[in-house]
């Protein structure tokens, strides 16, 4: 297949972000364990409270301490749903951040950095891998670059540098607080960095202090120390860093917004949907959800008592899916959450749930495969596996959410689908979603409905779990229901659930189970199958977390007077052929956008629709797409200058 990749450090220097003073990206980086995430949480909170829309994204290595991680927080005065390729203001208290990200600072942007790093050579930064090192040297045309060299380079791009000696800053603080221990509190570099940034761009100081105290709420002494450091750094910045290229004063708040972290959509969705059993085996990026449910899964109910989800950490993922199914058989809404390797281990038992028509919801937080792959990086490469996982043929639903907000409501829908159609539902999420922190409209639990389908609360007369006839979905008893005894088996079975090898019963049971795929497409509302966000001659088809960057890209193009269509496919299996066909009506050029190498959804599309896909925009570096990447690719397509297969490469 024709294919082109746009790579190389220097082409990562991007066009300035949208022309709006309030589309601003702040980046902080540092070794893992040094508090990059806390700094980003603090910054996001200030910005959100100052009235901005926030979109923050974390990147980190599969490592506990020492390797580079960074957080880019984008903010705007209007809704944003993705990261930008460019950085407006960078904060670096270590050399690696400067080396790794200098080229993404936009023209006219700024950098606050630790001036003590000036003479550090890139070759001495042990965590800077040789591949990036080489590309950087080429970009800088220098085989032994230092921080200073890099800063000189960015200065050429009109980037304003604010050198601050973090050591001196600490010494100042130690002196002014009369506390010599402060001198060595390098641990506070993160808070100092964020506070310098806040001071520079004049975010409200009170918000900073509140946020710092919030983050360290558990330990009073630490909170005090950090609050002092924050105040001090803020003041230094606002007093000494003049000629700031940007200021971000508080603006009017959009009502009813919340600042939400990636996994909370599915976590809270499960609580609201009535999931009361979750088994899991630790895996990145899925286990945050389970840990959250274990810590926060007890909630007041309508009788003044409390209900709680029981969370069981199992010995492996085979046990996780087995326990989930066992629990679901008792009539309890049950779930598990995993990522690719864990999901692979669940393939066999998924088929058991399928043949026994057990309603379960499996939340699949995708990351980059194959195998262990890039375990802390993003990917959308488990789709076809999710659709076809498990030997033999059995019904399932594969459903994908496009953003965190959707994932809350979708989680509830997934439980309803599983109960109504009595099948396993695989809810596709991913690492990009899970490592996002963003502002979005508050989840509204009153919009959640619960439909348990044909779950019985009593049985009269003879009961047959797999009764044939009707719409093929039989009334469902559960373990412990009075007079509701049934049998289940992984073997083909008769209506009661006992093994049979009769060819005629076999054929009827196969049809009973698989015919419901058509039923689903008939009954599930169109809007839950696929969504048209815009129509146009050029129309994107995509699924899952590409939604955010696509919508932002479309908005950017709209400002240039260009309209591109976008159909987001939410139900991936059974594939909503008719619905998609309808929504695509009028589209002439179809563009498939996915974060994988083989255009997996495109294959499902080709299987089901007789419409050729004209272009692919794919990314599989482990990094999520930015809005500019998509915008630029679309422009190339529209201008006829794009290859059929465009591979995106942005992101460190």
């Amino acid at each position, binding site marked *: 297949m024709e294919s082109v990749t746009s790579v190389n450090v220097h082409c990562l220097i991007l066009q300035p972000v949208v022309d709006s003073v309030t589309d601003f990206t702040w980046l902080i980086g540092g070794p893992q364990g040094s508090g990059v995430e806390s700094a980003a949480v603090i910054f996001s909170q200030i910005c*959100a*409270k100052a009235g901005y829309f926030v979109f923050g994204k974390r990147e980190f290595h599969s490592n506990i301490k020492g390797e580079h991680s960074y957080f880019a927080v984008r903010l705007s005065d209007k809704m944003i749903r993705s990261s930008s390729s460019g950085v407006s203001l960078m904060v670096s208290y270590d050399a690696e951040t400067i080396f790794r990200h200098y080229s993404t600072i936009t023209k006219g942007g700024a950098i606050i950095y630790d001036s003590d790093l000036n003479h550090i050579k890139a070759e001495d930064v042990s965590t800077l891998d040789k591949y990036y090192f080489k590309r950087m040297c080429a970009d800088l045309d220098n085989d032994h670059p230092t921080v200073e060299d890099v800063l000189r380079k960015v200065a050429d791009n009109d980037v304003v540098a604010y050198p601050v000696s973090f050591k001196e800053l600490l010494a100042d603080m130690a002196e002014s607080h009369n506390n010599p221990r402060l001198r060595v509190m390098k641990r506070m570099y993160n808070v100092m960095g964020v506070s310098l940034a806040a001071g520079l761009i004049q975010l409200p100081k009170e918000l900073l202090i509140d946020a710092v105290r919030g983050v360290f709420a558990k330990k009073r002494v630490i909170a005090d120390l950090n609050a002092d450091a924050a105040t001090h750094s803020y003041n230094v910045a606002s007093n000494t860093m003049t000629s700031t290229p940007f200021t971000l004063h508080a603006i009017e708040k959009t009502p*009813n*917004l*919340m600042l939400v972290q990636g996994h*909370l959509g599915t976590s809270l969705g499960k*609580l609201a*949907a*009535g999931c*009361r*059993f979750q*088994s899991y085996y630790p895996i990145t990026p899925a286990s945050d959800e389970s840990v959250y449910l*274990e810590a*926060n899964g007890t*909630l*007041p*109910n*309508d*009788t003044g*008592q*409390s*209900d*709680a*989800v*029981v969370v*069981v950490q*199992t*010995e*492996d993922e*085979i*046990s996780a899916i*087995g*326990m*989930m199914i*066992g*629990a679901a*058989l*008792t*009539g*309890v*809404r*049950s779930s598990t959450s995993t990522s690719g390797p864990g999901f692979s281990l669940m393939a*066999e038992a998924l088929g*058991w749930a399928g043949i026994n028509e057990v309603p379960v919801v499996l939340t699949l937080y995708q990351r980059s495969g194959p195998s262990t792959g890039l375990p802390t990086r993003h990917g959308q490469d488990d789709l076809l596996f999710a659709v076809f996982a498990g030997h033999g043929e059995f019904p399932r639903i594969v459903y994908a959410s496009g953003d965190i907000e959707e994932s809350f409501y979708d989680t509830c829908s997934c439980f309803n689908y599983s109960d109504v159609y009595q099948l396993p539902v695989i809810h596709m999420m991913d690492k990009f979603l899970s490592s996002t922190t963003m*502002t979005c409209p*508050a*989840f509204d*639990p009153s919009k959640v*409905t*619960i439909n*348990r389908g044909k779950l019985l609360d009593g049985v009269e007369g003879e009961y047959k779990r797999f009764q044939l006839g009707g719409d093929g979905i039989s009334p469902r008893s559960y*373990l*412990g229901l009075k007079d*509701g*005894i049934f*049998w*289940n088996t992984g*073997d083909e079975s008769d209506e009661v659930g*006992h*093994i049979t090898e009769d060819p005629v019963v076999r054929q009827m049971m196969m049809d009973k189970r698989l015919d419901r795929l058509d039923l689903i497409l008939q009954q599930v509302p169109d809007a839950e199958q696929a969504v048209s966000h815009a129509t146009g001659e050029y129309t994107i088809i995509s699924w899952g977390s590409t939604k955010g960057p696509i919508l932002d890209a479309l908005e950017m193009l709209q400002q240039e007077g260009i309209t591109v269509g976008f159909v987001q496919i939410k139900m991936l299996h059974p594939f909503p052929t008719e619905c998609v066909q309808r929504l695509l009506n009028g589209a002439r050029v179809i563009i498939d956008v996915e974060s994988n190498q083989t255009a997996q959804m495109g294959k499902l599309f080709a299987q089901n629709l007789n419409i050729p896909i004209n272009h692919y925009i794919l990314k599989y570096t482990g990094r999520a797409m930015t809005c500019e990447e998509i915008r630029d690719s679309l422009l190339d397509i529209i201008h006829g200058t794009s290859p059929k297969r465009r591979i995106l490469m942005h992101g460190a």
Partner: protein
Amino acid sequence: MALKVADYKTGVHNDWCPGCGDFGIVNALQMSLAEMGIERDRTAIFSGVGCSGKTVHFVNTYGIHTLHGRVLPFAQGAKVANPDLTVVAVGGDGDGLGIGAGHFVAAGRRDIDFTYIVFDNGVYGLTKGQASPTLKLWEQPKSLPKPNINYNVNPIGLAITSGYTFVARAYSYDIRHLKSMIMQAIAHKGTSFLAVLQPCPTYNDINTRDWYAGLDMEDAVSRHSRIYKLEDTGYDPVVHYASESEMDEKLSQALIRSLDWGDKIPTGIFYKNETISTFSQRIQTNIPNYPENPPSRQSISKDGKPTVDISNIVQSMLIS
């Protein structure tokens, strides 16, 4: 009206081989349930895959025939979600100690209140007689092209080391004793493991009924001369109080006994410890009302709307 053994039988045609030891086990299980008066629809039997896996279809309670090697996860999930159920898991030696050994070890760490019965026939019955993990080194039952080159697993020892709080063995042709073991296993609070010596007349031509009867031994005295009962020797398997030394003593005597085989095979209870908290008690430290309000008793919706209130959590994330 008291339930009779017949009430626990289904009409399903039983296709085990004539003389199979499995018959004794399913009979003893049905008798035990009847004698204990456990309600049929409050009981769930789970099985693995193998000849033994068919058991659930013959017992008239909830019956879940799971996957090869996976009976323990399914059974434990159900019991944790609905602690009101009487849960019995059954399966083959290949199922539980071969492909399922990882779950076997892990279950010992939880002590969920259910019973696990392994049908120990030394072979993979349903796949035509290959070596199971309990088959001894160098033995060659008739389906093996070559003698077995694997050492055997020690089910009793493994259960004890893995933390099971009730560990016992019975023989499928001594139904009275077997029944008593099953009843005690079910009554035990915590995970109980019962290994049943189960002759497979079709494939295991070594550990046959005659072998257990000691027909090859000089001094064969009884119907099952190779087998003796621990309780007949004054052996006390019970951990009487929660002290480390008491536990260590009872554990190590059990482990030592578990090594016996050959002409003197112990049956009965090797180890029993109710001084350890069950999983359900442990869950309570996190969820105090778990016993009265476990997942299975929670009614999650009213008029199609959730009954729990997550608004406090949502509130806490609102930008204020």
